[in-house]
């Protein structure tokens, strides 16, 4: 400890560069890909890249060209602005849903982990019930009740991702809550909410970060799946799943219409999963040994 202190005074380090340097190249590339996609989704429509996504501008199913960089769809709309809009829709729906999941699961997991016993049992049973529904099947049930659209996608994602994340956070919180410093805080009269925030939340933040990342990739998958079946985001809006679904209809005549949204979707999910793995390795390190 003393050595590190003297080292950091003699050699000041840029904290941002230090944090970046601790991740490997693959992880950083993936973070870059995500940043680029987000930037495109935000700046693209503002700058009017590719024109109006809903306007019918050219021939139907035209291959990529200088005028239509990603080609046109079956109605003659330029695909580039539609893909950009689709990325935005997918990211926004997924991010909002995952934010809800993170809040619900972190709160639920910490409360369950802190109280243990019956409270833990009830929270985990509720999670078990939701967990018993295969993701896309739960999404279909939701869509059949609330009707197709953004709300269905949002609610489905939350219901699909909450059980697993609550269970993971709950397990991590349980481990923290039986530690001596939490017991010590309880004995010395610190209030339960304060312990949950000060001691438990700070110590499960790694798990929360890892699980939120994974939940985001599940969210994109579910949104895409529901839109693919035609019950997620509805026309004339656009989302990656919807574009893929449209692409499959004409994929023999116009494979590019399927290719662009598929590649972007896969890229986004791979990037998020790689970042999730990297975060997990960071927060749950494991020593390697040879036989």
């Amino acid at each position, binding site marked *: 400890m*003393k*050595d590190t202190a003297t080292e950091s005074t003699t050699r000041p380090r840029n904290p941002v560069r230090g944090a970046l340097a601790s991740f490997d190249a693959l992880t950083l590339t993936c973070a870059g890909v995500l940043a680029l996609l987000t930037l495109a989704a935000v700046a693209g429509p503002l700058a009017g890249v590719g024109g109006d996504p809903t306007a019918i501008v050219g021939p139907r199913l035209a291959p990529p060209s200088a005028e239509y960089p990603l080609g046109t769809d079956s109605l003659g709309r330029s695909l580039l602005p539609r893909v950009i809009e689709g990325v935005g829709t997918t990211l926004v729906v997924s991010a909002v849903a995952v934010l809800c999941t993170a809040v619900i699961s972190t709160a639920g997991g910490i409360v369950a982990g802190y109280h243990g016993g019956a409270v833990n049992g009830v929270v985990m049973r509720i999670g078990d019930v939701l967990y018993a529904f295969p993701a896309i099947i739960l999404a279909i049930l939701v869509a059949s009740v609330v009707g197709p659209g953004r709300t269905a996608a949002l609610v489905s994602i939350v219901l699909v991702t909450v059980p697993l994340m609550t269970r993971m956070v709950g397990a991590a919180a349980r481990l923290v809550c039986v530690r001596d410093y939490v017991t010590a805080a309880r004995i010395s009269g610190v209030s339960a909410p304060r312990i949950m925030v000060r001691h438990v939340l700070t110590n499960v933040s790694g798990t929360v970060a890892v699980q939120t990342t994974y939940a985001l990739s599940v969210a994109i998958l579910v949104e895409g799946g529901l839109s693919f079946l035609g019950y997620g985001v509805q026309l004339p809006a656009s989302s990656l799943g919807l574009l893929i679904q449209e692409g499959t209809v004409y994929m023999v005549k116009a494979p590019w219409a399927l290719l662009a949204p598929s590649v972007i979707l896969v890229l986004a999910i791979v990037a998020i999963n790689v970042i999730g793995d990297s975060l997990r390795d960071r927060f749950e390190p494991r*020593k*390697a*040994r*040879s036989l």
Partner: protein
Amino acid sequence: MNHLLRVDGATVDYTTRHGATRALDGANLTIAPGERVGLVGESGSGKSTLGLLVGRLLPAGARVGGTITVDGRDVLSLRPGDLRALRREVLGFVPQDPVGALDPTLRVGRQMRLALRGSAGEDGNPADLLERVRIDRPDRVLRLYPHEISGGMAQRIVIATVMAAAPRLLVADEPTAALDAQSREEVTGLVMDLAESEGTSVLWLSHDLRAVGRWCDRTAVMYGGRVVEDGSTRAVLDDPRHPYTRALSRSDPAHAVPGRRLPAIVGGPPTLVAGAPGCAFAPRCPRAVADCEGHRPLPLTVDGRTVLCLRPETETTVPSDVKAAS
């Protein structure tokens, strides 16, 4: 002299995220057949590294130098098959965490039979082996899973299994650290008795100076990855010549004098890097002079033991009451 184990100038380096660190820094040690050697030193002094090195059991990424000879075989250059044969036939290891050393998914009897397969103890009946380590109703114990038995019981099972193969050299890495005081005495006695009857040499890594003083013929003291004092247990523990050994034996609670504060060793253990000059203990040493920082001490023979020090203590300065307590 014919040594069973000979460690000559052993070095072990690791490359970590924070740079290179050195776990062993030219350690020397010999063990004769049948000899019981206690290896003492604080955490991080290199005891465990040295113990594992004897069977080339260090984690991947360890860079090893020097020579280690066991039973005339050059351990560091053995081919995988020969290395396994050495581990199987000549060496025995007793770990610190006995419950963890048992496969959690197998009943005790089944894993003992698996472990004994192909070794000298193959024909041994596991129940008889358990009786040798004084376990009552061995047939019942053989049917239990590791999570159903106590640490003391698990350590006896491990010892029974290891000793069934009649190893020539037993390396025990703080085998009693996880046990309660009662089991500690019994398990230590058990290992030493079994080793004596089999003619097995013992390398006993320990913090417990009292146990080492009671059971070991010779004591080697490690500091900073080197063996700094090595001689008969009586000489080393009762009349230390290296300033570190002296400080260590003074800070042993067993030597506590009622009403007097137990002297602590000032400072913390060193973090070693390869090729550092000087004596690793110099920064904490009350007798250090300028030379100690710049020159590595060479082995000196003083009063029948080897000391790695430029200025070894010359006379008995341990208070007589402390001496009596040991």
